[in-house]
């Protein structure tokens, strides 16, 4: 198997990277009809598998689960998840041949083995559904020509997919049809119906391609979403401790701060987040985020280049082959950082205090979101996709840090994201060493406004506001957020 993207001529690469269409709700009026009465068989019953299945069944569809023989015989968690909810569970041999749609919700790493095992069992003209395109795009998996290959990727953890559905909403979802495998032209209609079945159509659906999804997803998760949040959190914590701020306070500020700050981002974009600062703090945050963008731009570009060339995926797959040697070592090292080992102190931090005392993180987030967005768009990814994979997902990842710090974040995200996150973090920390020597506690740990008179130069402020508001991530973000009216607040501790 060879990297699918690299087999394409340039014009076709650009063509597939540029698939991006925010779908109108009128496109979903046919509901789940296309899948009604069809047999949906889900491979794997973890958090995504179980919760998507519960939603699909509650939408009136026929859902069952297939697991490996060992998982069934050993009555593993996946088997319990499915049977305790009264789903039919069977082996590949029992269920795959009956399936009209096979939904592969196993981890990336298992895709090649799973798809190789199930493909010969699939009936002619069936559909294979992925929720991530890595296997098709990076590993170049070839699917039998009679099979339709589609992707439906809810942009939230499985538990949220369920919670939002039963509340009558859904989570934003990305769909795609693989152009090499749409023999009957039914892929898009099925993907849309699946979206309705999981509730995604109520929260905004982006039509993308396998290529655009993979290349933008990898970029987002490695840089702003996981990488920079990890680097920024660790550097901030270490700086506070170095400057004599109480470690318990520092730990709490970092653990929850990123969630509170990005909650403002979620509702009002970079502008909304920056507007939570006082004017002097905003001016300062703008200046240092400009500096951060200049320092980090080459690193963001390198990540995008390695993703496009396939360098990243081949390096990571080599680590898979080596039994995840690097991944496991880096994961262990993250667990040993001082931030991870210092419990959050028993102090109350008011919501506004998270902004005033953690201006540095506001600057990190602005720099990271804008850089990731700019770099993706320069690489041929459409602004809508770039928005989803940068700004939109940042609060979701921040939420995992608030729950249980970086260890939790790295546990929740895929191994692929985790691997890329560590690569970024290792390269980014030395890049920022000089910058961090200039940072003092007014930017992290203490109230920035303390001892300042609050005055700013009118023209400076106007220029900054103008620069923030007219950035392309804000323009597209305003449009997309309006379309996704189901903005729900994340509860903070």
């Amino acid at each position, binding site marked *: 198997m060879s990297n699918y993207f690299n087999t394409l001529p340039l014009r076709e690469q650009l063509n597939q990277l540029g698939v991006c269409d925010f779908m109108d*709700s009128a496109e979903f009026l046919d509901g*789940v009809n296309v899948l*009604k*009465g069809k047999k949906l068989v889900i491979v794997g019953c973890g958090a995504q598998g*179980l919760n998507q299945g*519960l939603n699909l*069944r*509650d*939408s*009136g569809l*026929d859902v069952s689960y297939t697991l490996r023989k060992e998982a069934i015989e050993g009555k593993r968690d996946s088997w319990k*998840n499915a049977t*305790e*909810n*009264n789903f039919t569970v069977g082996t590949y041999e029992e269920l795959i041949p009956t399936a009209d749609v096979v939904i592969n919700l196993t981890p990336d790493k298992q895709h090649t083995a799973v798809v190789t095992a199930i493909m010969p069992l699939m009936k002619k003209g069936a559909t294979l559904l992925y929720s991530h395109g890595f296997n098709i795009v990076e590993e170049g998996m070839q699917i039998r020509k009679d099979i339709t290959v589609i992707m439906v990727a809810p942009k939230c953890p499985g*538990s949220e997919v*369920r*919670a939002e559905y*039963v*509340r*009558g*909403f859904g989570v934003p979802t990305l769909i795609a049809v693989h152009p090499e495998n749409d023999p009957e032209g039914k892929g898009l209609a099925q993907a849309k119906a699946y979206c309705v079945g999981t509730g995604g159509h*109520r*929260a905004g659906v982006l039509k993308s391609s396998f290529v655009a999804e993979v290349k933008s997803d990898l970029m987002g998760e490695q840089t702003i979403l996981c990488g920079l949040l990890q680097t920024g959190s660790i550097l901030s914590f270490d700086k506070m401790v170095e400057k004599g701020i109480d470690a318990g306070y520092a730990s709490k500020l970092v653990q929850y701060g990123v969630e509170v700050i990005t909650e403002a981002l979620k509702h009002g974009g970079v502008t909304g987040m920056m507007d939570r600062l006082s004017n002097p703090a905003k001016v300062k945050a703008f200046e240092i985020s400009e500096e951060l963008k200049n320092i980090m731009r080459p690193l963001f570009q390198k990540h995008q280049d390695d993703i496009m060339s396939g360098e990243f995926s081949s390096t990571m797959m080599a680590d898979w082959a080596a039994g995840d040697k690097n991944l496991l070592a880096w994961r262990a090292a993250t667990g040993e950082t001082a931030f991870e080992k210092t419990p959050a102190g028993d102090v109350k931090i008011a919501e506004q205090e998270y902004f005033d005392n953690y201006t540095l993180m506001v600057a990190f987030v602005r720099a990271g979101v804008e850089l990731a967005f700019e770099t993706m768009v320069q690489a041929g990814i459409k602004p809508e996709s770039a928005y989803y994979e940068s700004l939109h997902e940042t609060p979701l990842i921040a939420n995992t840090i608030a*729950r*249980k710090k970086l260890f*939790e974040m790295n546990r929740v995200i895929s191994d692929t994201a985790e691997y890329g996150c560590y690569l970024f973090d290792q390269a980014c920390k030395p890049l920022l060493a000089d910058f961090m020597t200039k940072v003092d506690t007014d930017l992290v740990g203490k109230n920035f406004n303390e001892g300042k008179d609050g005055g700013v130069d009118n023209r400076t402020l106007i220029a900054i506001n103008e620069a923030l508001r007219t950035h392309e991530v804000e323009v597209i973000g305003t449009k997309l957020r309006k379309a996704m*009216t*189901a903005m*729900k*607040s*994340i*509860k903070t*501790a």
Partner: protein
Amino acid sequence: MSQPVVHIANLNLKYQSKPVLQDLNWTINRYENWLLCGTSGSGKTSLAKAIAGVAHSYGNIKIEFNAQSNLPATVYYVANWFQFKDLEGQSNFYYQQRYNKQSTETTATVKAELESFGKKHALQFNELDSILAALGFSELKHSTLIQLSSGEHKKLQLVKAIWLKPQVLILDLPYNGLDTLSRQNLNALLEEISEAGTQLILISNDDELPSCINRFAVIKEGQLVEISADERTGNEFDTLDQPVPAFLAETMVTSSSAEIIKMIDVNISYGEKRVLKNINWEVKAGEKWVLQGHNGSGKSTLLSLICGDHPQAYANNFHLFGNKRGSGESIWEIKKRIGLISPELHWYFDPSATVFQSIVSGFYDSSGLFCDPGYSKKVQTDELISYFGLDEFKNTLMNELPLGKQRLALLARTIVKNPELLILDEPCQGLDQQQTKHFNRLVDGLCKNGTTLIYVGHFESQLPDCIEKRILLENGAVKSVENILESVEIAESVENVENFEY
């Protein structure tokens, strides 16, 4: 001899930016046990929180603890609702979560919760079992917090308070969700601890109080006003005391099937624990039922099956609105025929929705609004907002309102689409007696148009008049199904009330 225990002078408190308490004075002497009653939103909860030191107030609150007493020198406040978080410190729950086993393991068990409470306050663990037994809670030790019903949450709060036996105990809506027997047992326990030296402040509009309650008060215009025991049922103006809004009253409800519910040997269990046992039940279109049973008898689980909220519905044999459950219908097709309110729906409702959004979301069966409802739905919603007296709160967020007002908004949400089946699970929790009476009269009015009703209420005196059938659950099984014979007479008297000029 009656030195003051709590002395409050010139207390001022604002809720959001509105003044709630204004120069309030109150002296509580030893051996006094007070009842604080009256309309919702008058400031009872705010006052309680101020005394307990959990709300910010201005003025003087002095508490003289008894140095000779061996009871903890503390004021303990039992909130009107049980607040809890999952093991990761989040409280982003949804009301259907307790029916799905995989989603319940994220919260602590009752046992762990009680152990940490006991350790924190250095309590004697040997005293716990008798309290648990008295409130019928012993078997729930291994349940997780999210699995408990609202009545069980209330009991857990009460168990803690009674175990602690503080010198001053404030109980905010202690009877909410409790069945008749539990209320009696609670009163006995309260009398016991009062005897032993705990002074009580109860916030409640219920009738059956512990006999040790000897002072009564309401809050009027931000001030405490003492009343006599007989003055408790206030006659405040109440907008619910009006004819049913025309868009509801004048529309006949057409039932989708002559048989709304038909259950055949329905069983629900979680592992070894059987929650519903061989339930057989038929509800025909237009029938008005009351569903009763002790706390934990399976009422909520039974209703969750009807509302499409229980994943085990697919393993059972029952029909809803004429279709076999699991024959290709979606839960949204079921929900659009049902108007539901329950303590759990209220508790887990989107707190960041406005009153308007909450009510209009009843058209879509969502917790909060996700689309533009269009003109006619907005107009109908506005009409109900006025009917429920919520005009000034139309754009207020739910979590900025007192419980009673939130409840009114959710009652409006329940009826806004004039559904063919109304499921009212303790609908009047948190309302005062007057509001309860009026709401039940509204239910009577609505139900005249062919609506099918299932009403859960522990007290006969607090049921709508239209109820004609009763199903009684006990330990997960149907104990009895019966016709309520008086229904004919009651229906006639309703007619008379309707013609009465106010």
